């Protein structure tokens, strides 16, 4: 059967995230009910036991993050899903997962904040929190889907990256993509490329659980596989046991950060940027409005293009740096008071104007608003 024969199915972004997780081989989900992400927990509560996997609703957000890390250490591909306030609560154990190099996926369907905010309304206010939410320097991979289809494919990708890099990966959705329904094509199992954590190739007595390969990533034994090793959130050496000198901390944290920085190629979509004089930089649901605005601008003869960071972290620095040499201005629409714009300003180095367009009234920025901004800076 060819691609064209495939029947699209209507589902929401949250439902597509469930499908993606199942395709990726999820076997453990721990969560806590929170709008607007709850449909992900509900979907996996229903589906996971049919795959022999486990679902548990924990007593709080902290516990669900902890349980996910525990399950992953025992060998299960594990995920949790939450929103604003829950994402704040999970931060400490996200840091633990980064420090102890435990693969896991954390979905944050962004809602209006701070605090309880507007629980059912969209926002993109957690972009910096996704980067710096837990204390200390640490690696971060965060992906931002702009469509229901991408909610599926990027969930698979999030699992793959978590396994490959041995680090928590954040799927940074927003309420718009989480709740809207559109038609998507469900990939067949054989079309999905799955990545699994590196296994040790040495016998247990020779295993150094935190001795990295040249790519900076150590092979990972699962608890119960006979390796009997120690995992801690303290600074540790290659053996996994605490080592309290500053130099040990320096060595460890640099490796953690660099294993992502040196290997991960930021994911980005560029649309009509080749001859662009103005580049719109937009992520998630806002990128949909931005694409429309670019089309409208082109109809008016304005040379405008779109850069859509799919991995917001690591940020596609090079793409922005290169464009800064060519374009006159960047327009950065986002549903917050200016977070992505800071990255664009940093990468543009003053070589092009950078103009934010911000909305925090719980409404998706419209194509017309972006077009007006494009016309202003033209």
């Amino acid at each position, binding site marked *: 059967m060819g691609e064209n024969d495939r029947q699209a199915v209507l589902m929401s972004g949250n439902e597509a995230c469930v499908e993606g997780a199942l395709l990726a081989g999820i076997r453990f989900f721990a969560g806590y009910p929170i709008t607007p992400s709850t449909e992900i927990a509900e979907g996996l509560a229903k589906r996971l036991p049919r795959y022999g996997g486990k679902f548990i609703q924990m007593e709080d957000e*902290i*516990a669900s993050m902890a349980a996910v890390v525990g399950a992953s250490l025992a060998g*299960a591909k594990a995920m949790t899903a939450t929103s604003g306030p829950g994402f704040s609560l999970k931060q400490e*154990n996200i840091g*633990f997962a980064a420090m102890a190099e435990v693969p896991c996926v954390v979905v944050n369907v962004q809602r209006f904040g701070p605090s309880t905010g507007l629980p059912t309304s969209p926002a993109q206010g957690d972009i910096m929190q996704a980067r710096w939410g837990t204390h200390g320097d640490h690696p971060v991979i965060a992906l931002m889907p702009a469509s229901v289809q991408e909610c599926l494919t990027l969930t698979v990708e999030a699992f793959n990256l978590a396994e490959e890099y041995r680090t928590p990966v954040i799927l940074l959705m927003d309420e718009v993509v989480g709740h809207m329904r559109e038609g998507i094509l469900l990939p067949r199992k054989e079309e999905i490329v799955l990545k699994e954590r590196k296994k040790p190739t040495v016998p247990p007595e020779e295993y150094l659980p935190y001795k990295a390969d040249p790519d900076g990533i150590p092979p990972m034994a*699962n608890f*119960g596989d006979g390796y*009997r090793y120690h995992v801690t959130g303290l600074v540790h050496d290659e053996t996994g046991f605490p080592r309290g000198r500053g130099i040990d901390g320096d060595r460890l944290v640099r490796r953690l950060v660099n294993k992502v920085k040196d290997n991960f190629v930021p994911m980005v979509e560029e649309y009509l940027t080749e001859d662009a004089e103005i580049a719109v930089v937009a992520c998630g649901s806002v990128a949909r409005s931005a694409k429309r605005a670019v089309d409208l601008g082109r109809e008016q003869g304005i040379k405008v293009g779109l850069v859509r960071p799919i991995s917001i972290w690591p940020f596609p620095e090079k793409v922005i740096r290169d464009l800064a040499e060519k374009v006159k201005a960047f327009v950065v629409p986002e549903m917050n008071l200016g977070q992505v714009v800071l990255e664009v300003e940093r990468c543009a180095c003053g070589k092009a104007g950078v103009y934010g367009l911000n909305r925090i009234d719980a409404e998706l920025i419209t194509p017309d608003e972006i077009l007006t901004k494009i016309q202003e800076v033209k």
Partner: protein
Amino acid sequence: MAVKELLAKYTRMEKLPHIWCAGCGHGIILGSVLRAIQRQNLDPFKTTVVSGIGCSSRAPGYMKFDTLHTTHGRALAFATGVKLARPELKVIVLTGDGDCAAIGGNHLIHAARRNIDLTTVVFNNSIYGMTSGQYSPLTPHKRYATTAPYGNVDHPFDLCELVKAAGATYVARGTVYHTQMLIDLIAKGIEHKGFSFIEVVTNCPTYFGRKNKMGSAVDMLNWLKEHAVPVKAAAKLPPEKLADKFVIGELHRGERPEYVEEYQRIIDGLKGE
């Protein structure tokens, strides 16, 4: 088994000596846990030990199993994930009074409520030792701590009553003075299918003892001897004679379905569809 053999089989000898202070009771608890593991003949390759943060939580580092030293208070939540993902593993949680009754209190009552098959051993020294002597939810009323310089205003939990009420199906209390009983209580907890909970009253001569003028480590052990009343003896005593005492031994056994098995039944039931 002689001590040397026990240590060789179950500890990471190269990590010894331990970091605990001279006279601290935690080593006795660690030894008792190892003897209980040995008595139950657990497979060292299929046993995982999980802890939180604090003096007690350093214990897994010395133990030759898969060991997980987690974040403060969260040991039971991490352990829940390990156990659910890999039910064939025996999971033992080592935690302290601050770790499991304060910051981790919510996880404690919910693990008990689920009756999930975890064996939890609480090292109760009535104080936060790692951070040098602040009061915990198990510091008795009017006792002193660096954060209770005028005597503790709080009243302590009866942790065994708490987890019993929450649904734990094996509840016991021991002390580091009554070591044979302690090994027995922990062994029975390991043997028990369901959430088993053993509170171990231990001595912290460095902080709790010094702040409260309780004398040397030996004096503190004697205090334990004089104030602990075995459960059978306690049953015969009038309440006024028990006023300044605490009861030790097996305090509760209940019969309820175990969480992981219950979930497995759902999985098995769906296979038929």
